[in-house]
């Protein structure tokens, strides 16, 4: 199953615009993963297709997203609000990616992590596509990973 960069960008644009009222732009800076503090959410898809969707947001955008979603001033959002906001955005991405899949699939609940200087990986998977885009000058990334199915033993 392939996911084109154009499909992912269109999803990102739709979600960011309709949920947050924010515009995005394509990013070619290659600055992905360089923010000092960020929130990432991973939502897994199981069933006819097995993989994961990972959304990675710098702290400033995660906080802004939470303030918009929950109608709170940015300096009053809590860690929980930020995690909930990014989880919700990842859930939307996951749900829309699932909509592109041909057969019955199930979404996990999002796993959300927040911190500085951490790495997040999904072992046993391969990167199918990664898109970075800009929002308010900050780089956000969406990665789609596909589970590497173990080879079955020969009969």
């Amino acid at each position, binding site marked *: 199953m392939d996911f084109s960069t154009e499909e992912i960008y269109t999803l990102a644009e739709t979600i960011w615009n309709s949920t947050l009222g924010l515009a995005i732009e394509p990013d070619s800076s290659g600055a992905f993963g360089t923010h000092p503090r960020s929130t990432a959410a991973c939502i*897994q898809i199981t*069933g006819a297709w097995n993989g994961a969707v990972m959304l990675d947001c710098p702290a400033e955008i995660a906080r802004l997203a939470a303030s918009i979603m929950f109608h709170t001033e940015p300096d009053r959002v809590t860690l929980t609000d930020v995690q909930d906001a990014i989880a919700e955005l990842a859930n939307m991405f996951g749900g829309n990616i699932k909509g592109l899949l041909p057969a019955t699939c199930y*979404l*996990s609940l999002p796993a959300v992590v927040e*911190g*500085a200087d951490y790495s997040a990986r999904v*072992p*046993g998977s391969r990167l199918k596509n990664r898109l970075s885009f800009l929002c308010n000058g900050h780089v956000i990334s969406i990665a789609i990973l596909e589970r590497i199915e173990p080879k079955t033993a020969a009969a």
Partner: protein
Amino acid sequence: MPSTPTASPPAAPQAPISPKLIAPFVNSVRSVFSTMVKVESKVGIPHLKDVPAPSYDVSGIIGFSGDIVGNVVVSFQKAAAEKLVSAFAGASIPAESPDFADALGELANMIAGGAKKDLGVNASITCPSVIIGQGHHIARLRDVPCIVFPCQTEFGNFAVEVNIKEVQPGAGRKEK
């Protein structure tokens, strides 16, 4: 068109977690570390994680979907993780190695898989997600208690955080 979320809800009252959801994880931890890592693990008294405190330095997250939903996190001190992963793999694997996350994810996968068998429910487990970095916070379901099991081994400490709930049969699945 993606739906727009409503305002952040107030903290939901937490449903009690069923003991039958917990014992399989305790048993699975003991079994996996005994058989696959060849170390004895002492599981301490479980307690509620009622504040979003950081996990240890290295965490493996396994999601459940189906008749049980939520996440299970196995979180290690970095030094303990390196020793346990190396014992599991039969070779020295530092945290910087790409094999480290793979091996740690596999341990988490085994713990969750072993527990899932004992739970006897219709549920799927996800690929593990592995987080490496001090001071990271992992979100949890707010309407379900997060039960933490502190564990000790000769190589150091780790914790298992169980944040799962049963759903009505068939209701936990978001079918296409």
